[in-house]
């Protein structure tokens, strides 16, 4: 029970903090966050119902219904962020190279014009 209250308090606290800090920048992100927090809030408030639901589905505890999908999502996110990182590195190199090649061509043009 105590853990449930703590989890709810944490979700409400972070929700409030984000309401103050990011509501002007991205309302959609905030909405998504609140949907997730509501799920956590319900899970912490009615653990027995979620345990019963989990037993029906066959995943053990109610909290596992959140943890397993979360693990899948986190694993996917880790891989995708690595791929994105390498793509960005590649793009930075292309940009740096293009700047250097253009600078060299400009210097040559200026040199030719000064002759």
């Amino acid at each position, binding site marked *: 029970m105590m853990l449930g209250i703590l989890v709810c308090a944490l979700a409400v606290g972070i929700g409030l903090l984000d309401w103050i800090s990011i509501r002007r920048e991205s309302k959609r992100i905030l909405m998504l966050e609140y949907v997730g927090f509501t799920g956590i809030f319900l899970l912490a408030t009615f653990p027995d119902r979620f345990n019963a639901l989990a037993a029906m589905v066959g995943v053990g505890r109610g909290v596992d219904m959140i943890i397993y999908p979360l693990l899948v999502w986190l694993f996917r996110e880790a891989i995708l962020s690595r791929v994105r990182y390498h793509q960005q*590195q*590649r793009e*930075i190199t292309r940009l*740096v190279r293009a700047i250097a090649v253009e600078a060299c061509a400009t210097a040559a043009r200026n040199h030719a014009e000064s002759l």
Partner: protein
Amino acid sequence: MVPRQRIAFLIPAFHVHPWLPTFVERLNSAFDRLRDEAGLEPVLVFVDDGSSRTGTTLDCHLSPLKGLSAEVACTRHPINRGQGAAIQTALEIARSSRVNASYFATFDSDGQHDPQDVVTMVSELRQRSLNIVFGNRFEAARSGGTGIPVLRWLLLRLASAFERTVTGLRLTDAHNGLRVFDRAAADKIELYQDRMAHATEFKAIVSRHSLRYGEVPVTITYSEESLSSGQRNSDALRVLVELLRGWWFR
């Protein structure tokens, strides 16, 4: 009069000190031989890979570069991207209509290579109708050249065995920065590996496109500058990780 074909020296530089007059003289002497013996006009493409340390920036290199008896094209990466990226930049400039080189030589900027070796490599490339020639430091070391530090010798041998397994190319020296190649090979080269693993990528490209390749004994001079600015022995593992990363996330 038909203009001479050009050979572009592709020189990546990162945190290296400007060349001494003696090295500039050695380069000029090799340029003369390239003109006389191979009928090639040398062009130097110098790419500063975002050097920021005092005394190593592009401005500091301009004076010795002016002392060269060849046309020089120099540029600078605004931020450091690695030796592979700098070689690719130099290659793009050398392939452009401005330079339009027919032959290319990758050449480390820290003075560890002997410019005269390029003349021998060009001759070998042409005589044997090869697309690319790699430098091999082990032959010269065996016949009384500059000695290779023991740990580096061991790591290079291991790297060669690894590359032979991965690419199928029978080459002795895994990470020699001195290579000479023709236009057909240059048009195939698009380096993906920005940092040190580009040396293995060169061989993968040769294998993928079935280019004709060979090896020529070259001399490497291990000075304090070349040992500190070049690859460290501990970089071997990093190269392996870079290769695996490139393979997975390409």
